[in-house]
C-alpha cells in the first residue's frame, strides 16, 4: 500500500469518513469515564475543596490548545514543502478547534483562579501566553477569511502558522521573563498543590477525550473542506449517497 495515495483528497475523503466516528465514540466514552472519575471517584481536595474539579477540563484543553498549534505547524511545513493540497486542508481543519480549546482553557482557568488564588485574571506567564495563543489562532482565521483564492489562502496561512509556531516558545519565554521581573506585583502562582494519583488519572483520561474529539472534529471538517473546494470534481459525483449520507 502506498502512503502517498492518502495525500489525494479523493482517497482521503472516504477514509476520513470511516475513521471519524471511531474517534468520536472513543472521545465520548472517554469523556464519560473521565467525568465519572472526576466527580464520583476523585476525593475532595483538602486545600482547594471542590473547585479543583475544574482542572479536569482546564488542563487537558490547555494541553490541546498548544498541541493543536504545533500540529498545524507540522501540516503547514508539509503544505509549503511539498505543495500538497491535503496538508493545507488538514491545517485549516484544526484552526477553529484550536481556538475553541484555547478559549475553554482561558475560561476555565479564570473560574478556577477565582476561588483558588482569589482572582479571575492574573498576568501570569501561562495565562498571558495562552491569551496571545488565542490571538494567533484568530489571526490565522482572519487571514483565511480575507483571501478568496483558497490556494493562496493555504500558503499564506501556512507561512503565518510557521512564523507563529517559531514565535510561541519565544513568547512564552519573554512573558515568563517579564513575570519574574515584576513578581512582587502579582500573585505567586508557582505553588502547585500535590495531586492524588486518581486525579492525575482522571486528567489523563480527559486529555485523551479532548485529543480524540479534536481528531474526529478535524476529520469531519476536512471532509467539508474537500467538498467545498472540489465540488465540481468528477470523483465527488461518484460518492455513494452524497446528500443522503450527511443528512
Amino acid at each position, binding site marked *: 500500500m502506498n502512503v502517498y495515495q492518502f495525500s489525494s483528497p479523493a482517497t482521503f475523503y472516504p477514509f476520513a469518513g470511516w475513521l471519524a466516528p471511531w474517534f468520536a465514540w472513543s472521545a465520548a466514552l472517554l469523556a464519560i469515564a473521565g467525568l465519572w472519575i472526576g466527580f464520583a471517584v476523585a476525593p475532595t481536595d483538602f486545600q482547594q475543596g471542590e473547585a479543583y474539579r475544574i482542572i479536569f477540563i482546564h488542563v487537558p484543553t490547555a494541553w490541546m490548545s498548544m498541541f493543536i498549534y504545533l500540529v498545524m505547524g507540522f501540516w503547514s511545513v508539509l503544505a509549503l514543502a511539498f505543495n500538497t493540497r491535503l496538508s493545507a486542508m488538514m491545517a485549516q481543519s484544526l484552526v477553529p478547534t484550536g481556538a475553541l480549546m484555547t478559549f475553554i482553557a482561558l475560561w476555565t482557568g479564570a473560574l478556577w483562579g477565582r476561588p483558588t488564588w482569589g482572582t479571575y485574571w492574573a498576568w501570569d506567564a501561562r495565562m498571558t501566553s495562552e491569551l496571545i495563543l488565542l*490571538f494567533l489562532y484568530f489571526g490565522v482565521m482572519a487571514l483565511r477569511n480575507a483571501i478568496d483564492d483558497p490556494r493562496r489562502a493555504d500558503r499564506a496561512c501556512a*507561512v503565518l502558522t510557521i512564523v507563529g509556531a517559531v514565535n510561541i516558545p519565544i513568547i512564552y519565554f*519573554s512573558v515568563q521573563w517579564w513575570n519574574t*521581573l515584576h513578581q512582587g506585583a502579582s500573585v505567586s502562582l508557582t505553588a502547585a498543590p500535590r495531586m492524588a494519583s486518581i486525579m492525575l488519572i482522571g486528567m489523563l483520561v480527559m486529555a485523551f477525550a479532548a485529543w480524540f474529539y479534536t481528531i474526529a472534529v478535524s476529520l469531519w471538517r476536512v471532509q467539508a473542506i474537500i467538498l467545498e473546494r472540489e465540488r465540481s470534481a468528477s470523483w465527488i459525483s461518484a460518492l455513494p449517497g452524497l446528500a443522503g449520507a450527511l443528512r
Partner: protein
Amino acid sequence: MAGAGMSADVDSGAGVGAALRWSVERDLRLALRSRSELGVQLMFYVIVVTLFPLASTPERMLLATMGPGVLWVAALLASLLSLPRLFASDFADGTLEQIALSPFPMPALVFGKILAHWLTTGLPIVLLAPLLGIQYGLDGTALWIVTLSLLIGTPILSLLGAIGAALTLGVRGGGSLLALLILPLYVPILIFGAGSADAVRAGLSASANLSLLGAGLLIALVGAPLATAASVRIALD
C-alpha cells in the same frame, strides 16, 4: 563542474549586493519624494506618546515608571501604521511582479526594502526617543537604555512586520488584519525592549534584556527576509 559552481556562487554573491543596493536606493528615493507622509507618521508617534500623561496623571514617579512602555507601545503602533506602505504601491503598479521576475534573489530585494523602511520610519523614532523620554522624567541611564533598546528593537519590528505586510497584500481589510496578525508576534520585542529600562530603574543591569533583543534581531535578520520573499511570491501568484 566545481569551477562553474564557484563562479555561479560569486555571481550570485555579487547579485545579492547589487540587488540590495538597488532596492535600498530606490525605496529611499521614493520615500524622500513623499516626505510629508513620513512627517505625518512621526507626528502620530509624538502625539500617541503625549496622550498617555493626559489619560492618567502628570505625577513624575508614575510617568517615569510607564515612560519606556509608552515609548515602546507608540513605536509598535507607528510601525504598524507605516507597514502597509512597504509593498502596497509596488504591488499596485506591477513593480513587485517585475522584481519577482528579475534574476536577482528575492530575499535580498525584499531585505533592501525593509532596510529602507526602517531608515525612514524606525530610525526617526529612535532619534526622537530621548526627547520624548525627558518629557516622561526619564533620567541619564534609563533614557539611554530605552533609546538603545529602540535602536536594536525597531529593526525587528520592520522585519517581522514585513512578513505581515506581504501576507496581507491586496487582501480585504488590510490594515486592521495586519494589526491582528503582527501585534501578537511583537509581544517578545515589547517585553524585552520596555523591560530593559525597567531593569535599570530597578537597579539591575539591562544587558540581559539587550542581549536577548540582539539575539532576536539576528534571528529576524536571517528568517524574516526569507519568509517575506515567500509571502510576496504567494501574493503574486
